[in-house]
Structures are given as C-alpha cells and as structure tokens.
C-alpha cells in the first residue's frame, strides 16, 4: 500500500502541498483529480523521488520509499521522458533492465507490452518517428514492462484517441486486478469516474475529499428528480427543500441537510400522478465542482 502522510512542499512563496495525506491500496485504481496547479504532479514527483518534500512521509508497504522500492514503481511523467533517437524496442528493454529485469526477460516483456499496446510493429523505429499518441503508449509500455507493483501515471490519457483510451483503461484495470496499485491523474472526469475504485480531489495542495464515487455522492447534498405534472409553480412548500432546476414537468429538488424523501413523495402524490421519483446521482464533475466551491466558501 502507498501511504502519503502530512506531505508539505513549498516553492519559494508558493505552498504547493499542505498537509497532504491519502493512501492507495494494492489492486486499487485511484484517480487523482484537481485543478491545474493543485499539486497532483508535485505529489507524484515526490513519490518518485524527483523532488524532496519539506515535511511528511511517503511509505510503501509500511516502509519509507527507497530507491530499491522505486525500482518497483512504474512512472509516467507529465512531460514524457523517452530518448527521441533511440529505437523503441531497445528503449523499453533498457528501462526494464534498469528496473531489475534480466536482459532476456526485459526483451521478452518489452515485446509483449509493446505488442499489447499496438506498437508491436514499431520496435525498430526511433521514438521521434512515432505520433504523439504512440509515444504516449510507448511511455506506458516503459512503465509497465518490468511488472511494477505501483503505477504512478501523470495525465496518461491526455491527447489520446478513444481507441487508445479504451486500450489504456483496459490495461490499467487488468493490472489492478493483478494486485498492482494504480495512481493516476486526469482532467477527464468521466473517464476517472468510470475507471477508478476511489478518487482523491486535491485543491491548493490539500486533499479535500477521498473515497469511491458513491461515498463522495453520499457526502454531497441529497437531490431528487420528481416528475409531478399536477404540481404548481410553488410546489413543494416544505421546510429545507429547494428547487434546483426545472425541465418541463420534471423538477430537481435539493433536499437540504435533513432530507425526508417520504414527506416529499407524499406531497407530490397529493398534486396528482407522479411519473418519476428518484435520487439524483451526481457525476464526478458535479462532485468536483461542489467540493471545490464548498472549499472556497469555507476559506
């Protein structure tokens, strides 16, 4: 398990990370979301030892992260890191060997992963001759080719076409099923929602929410969709319940801090037939906005 505890980091006057804590379990896909400059990349670079935090601890399986541990981490930096003029196959094999694989295993696994990611025919090509999307796949292959226990992927889906997104998503789910801990950042919130077991929302260097989408939704204010064509414009006149939006005869209600959906149902039935009555499941994007706006209100 990756445990990040009380991480702090300043760049001059800017506080990049403030008391940041979260954990990623083995076998879990953890989505790391936040605005630009929120601290996602700084956190990932700290895990990989690229920068030193001012305070806090980073542990893997209960031990402080050492170079030997990092050799078991697959890393995909935000700004891609591959030798432009080196042959693709040689490059992935070399990186796999640096992470501890024998030459024979590295050759086999490099070919295997490049093949799986659709680059099997490009082993002899220089990286600079690959398209942006293919370089992205190559970078993922570099992170995967040595059988890592933890994957740290900074914006792995940025700029990928839908087919490549599907391929990469499938690979990450499969790795998690094999017991690999996956931590990745993305601004594609629908994708994060679909792919992740848990999500962490970071804002201004602090983790403001973590949990599964369902857990995050529970912590958000309860909302109801009600379709009661007989309801008048002033309905419902119940304490704490407000109308968030109307779409024809459909009304989205915000139930407030003390929701009593049965009272609302009774009130709706009193106006006539009720065609729809269901809880609204907020999307991650809505949760994200809600969490950030509530954070801003608090501050």
């Amino acid at each position, binding site marked *: 398990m990756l445990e990040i505890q009380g991480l702090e980091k300043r760049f001059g006057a800017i506080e990049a990370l403030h008391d940041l804590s979260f954990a990623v379990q083995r076998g879990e896909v953890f989505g790391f979301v936040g605005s630009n400059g929120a601290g996602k990349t700084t956190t990932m670079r700290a895990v990989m030892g690229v*920068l*030193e935090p001012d305070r806090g601890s980073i542990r893997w399986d209960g031990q402080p992260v050492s170079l030997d541990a990092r*050799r078991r*981490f697959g890393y995909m930096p935000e700004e891609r890191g591959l*030798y432009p*003029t*080196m042959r693709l196959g040689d490059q992935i094999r070399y990186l796999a060997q640096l992470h*501890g694989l024998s030459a024979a295993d590295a050759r086999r696994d490099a070919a295997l992963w490049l093949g799986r990611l659709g680059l099997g025919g490009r082993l002899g090509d220089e990286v600079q001759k690959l398209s942006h999307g293919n370089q992205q796949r190559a970078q993922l292959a570099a992170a995967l080719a040595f059988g890592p226990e933890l994957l740290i992927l900074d914006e792995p889906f940025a700029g990928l076409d839908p087919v490549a997104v599907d391929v990469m998503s499938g690979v990450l789910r499969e790795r998690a099923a094999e017991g690999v801990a996956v931590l990745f950042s993305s601004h594609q919130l629908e994708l994060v929602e679909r792919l992740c077991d848990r999500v962490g929302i970071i804002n201004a260097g602090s983790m403001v929410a973590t949990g599964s989408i369902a857990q995050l939704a529970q912590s958000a204010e309860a909302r109801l969709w009600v379709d009661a064509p007989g309801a008048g414009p002033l309905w419902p006149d119940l304490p704490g319940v407000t109308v968030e939006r109307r779409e024809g005869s459909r009304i989205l209600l915000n139930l407030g801090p003390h929701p009593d959906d049965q009272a609302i149902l009774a009130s709706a039935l009193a106006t006539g037939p009720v065609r729809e009555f269901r809880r609204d499941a907020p999307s991650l994007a809505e949760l994200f906005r809600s969490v950030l706006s509530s954070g801003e209100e608090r501050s």
Partner: protein
Amino acid sequence: MNGSMSHLAAVRLVAGRELSERLRSRATRFISVLMPLLVVLLIAIPALVHLPSQPTRIALAGPAAQSLRGELRAAAGAAKMLVTVQDRTPGQAMADLKAGRVDAVLAAGGGQAVVTVRGSVGYFSTQTLPPAVQSLLQATLDAAHRQAVLLAAGVSPATLRAAFQPVPLAVRTLKPLPTDQTARDVAGLAAAMLLYMTILLYGQSLVASVAQEKTSRMAEVLLGAVRSVDLLTGKVVGMGIFAFGQMAITVAAGLVANAVFHSAVIPGTIWVLLPMVLFWFVLGYTLYSFGFAVAGALVGRQEDVQYVVTPFNIPLVLGFLLTYLELADPTNVWVRVISFLPPMAPVLMPARMAVSAVAPWEMPLAAILTLLAIYGEVRIAGRVCAPALVAGGGRLSWRTALSLRRG
C-alpha cells in the same frame, strides 16, 4: 522483478546503452572513419609530395661539356647529391630534354656555359633547376675554370688535386641533444593534440548527451531507478570506452601509415610514451567528463551547451597551447609548474615527458593531484546532478546549481 541493483550493474547498463547508441549513430560512424583517415592523409601527403630523391639527369652536350664529367661527378659525390651524367651530341641532348628523358642539358665552350631546362606548369612548377643542382653545376664550372687557369700558370696536377680536396667541416654542440629529439618534439606535440582533441570532442558529446536526458525529461524517469552518480558514471564510462577505441584506432592508423610512407621518424621512447598517453587519457578524460556531465545538467535547452562548457574548455585549450611553449623552451619554469595543475596536467605532462626528461617524482605527483581533483569533482557531481537534472526553467548558474536540492 528484483528491486535491488548494485552500483556496478547500474553503471554497466548505462554505459552499455551509451556505447551502443554511439555506435549506432550515423554521425559518430562518419567521425570514426574520418579521424583515422585524416591522420593517414596528414602522414601520407608530405611523404607523397616529397618523393624519395630521384637522381637529377644531366646531359653533357658536346665535347667541351663532356670534359667536365669528372669534376661534376666529384662535386656531386662531395655534396652527397644523386646525379646521372650522360654524354650526348647537342641535338640528341635537346631531343632528350624535350622528351623528358633528362632534366637539364649542359653546353660549354668559348669560356661560357649554358644550362637548359624544360620547365613545366602545374602544382609544382619548375621554371629552373633546383637551387642545389644549380649550385652544383656552378661549383663544377668554377672549379674547372680555376683548374684551367692554374694549369696554364704552371701549377702541377698533383698540387691542383691537393688544393681542390674538400676540407671536412665538423659541427660541435655544447649541450648535445638526443639524436631523435626532433622526433620526440613531434611525438610530444602529437600526443598533446590527440589528448586535447579526444577529451574536447568526447567531452562535448557527453555534455550533449546529458543535456538531451534533461531536456527530454528522460532524467526524471531514469532517476526513479538509478542513483545520479551511477547514471553519470555509466555515461562517462560508455563514452570513455568509445573515445578510447576511437583514439586507439587513430593512433594505430597513424603508426601503420607512417610505417608505409616513412613520413616521420618514430622516437625510441614511443613505447614508453604510448602507455603514458593512455594513462593520461584515462585521467584527463575522467577529470573533464565529470565536469562536462555536470555542465550538461545545467542547461535549460540544447542551445545552452556552448555556454556551460566554456569554464572547462579554457584550461583544456590553455594546456594544449602551453605545449608549444614547452617545445620552444623545455626549461621554462612556468610550464613546469603549470604541468602539475589538474586541469592542464593531462595534456601538458605527457607532452613534457615526450619532449624532455622529467624527474621521476613529477609524473606521480601530477597524477595524484589529478586523482584528488577527480574525487572532489565526483562528490560535487553527485550532489549537484540529481536536482539539476530535474530542475525546470532555464539554464542554471553554477552558484544556483551548487545550492540546489531536489525540488
């Protein structure tokens, strides 16, 4: 997968990649062929231009000229010149000259002598005789004239022969030099040039290689798996093996070319000098390459490379230029002192050893000082490189780099 890896294994992997990528590069392969070729040409061209001495073919036209045959041969023998003399009628002599069968026609009579040459236009135009041959003919005519005058005045032939015997001139030197001193000077200059060129060329390649790792963000990936010192050492070793191979091929090509063309005399000390050049190449390359590697970590973009290498290029160039001062005055105290300083020692000390006799303690002292400098440099490189390689923004100053820590 095993997470642990020894320093040696990491260095070997990095060095192996550096070497194989260097061998794969088209530009490197071109330079690898070009350098030995240039050396071979440098040796062959002077040898081909100054072809082994051919005899100067002189036709003596008519009886008066042919009467000078004895004097001409004697004078050529005294001057150690190769001359063939052929008796011809004036008509035959001119025909031979036009056909290129002789180089000059000498005609004499009536108290006068005329030398006719063909003359030609080309890279090496010859409008007249070589000065030495002209002096030889002039001396022959003068001697013949004086003998005739003296014989007419009644001087006996025996006295004449005694009077015209050449008097040997011996040259003494107060401080005799080794007989192969010129060869040693050439070898010293060649050693200094080879070391200077190799360190400069491959040091610059190393800067570019490290800079590429930084600017392509490759360093960020690598430092997750390798210690920065192992990464730098691997790069230095990989490039060093390639540079050494290149230098060995160039030296071998030069020695073989010299054996074929006999362009330069090889000094007797060559078998001491060659291992010394190798030894100082290892020390000098290591000293400079760690510095160059750190310099590569300072760049913000590839174009910065020329700026960051300047502090290393200056002492390297200075060491090479001082070699000329050593050749001009091997007793110069300043050159002697500077040859101990680590930045200059790798080029200057082997040159001094080639040119003049150095005291037995001098080379070990210079080597120890250079090793200490390398140790200090590796310590600094280990501290500076990791944060500098992952630092964002533009080119870093040395002051900033020395104060950096990761992040």
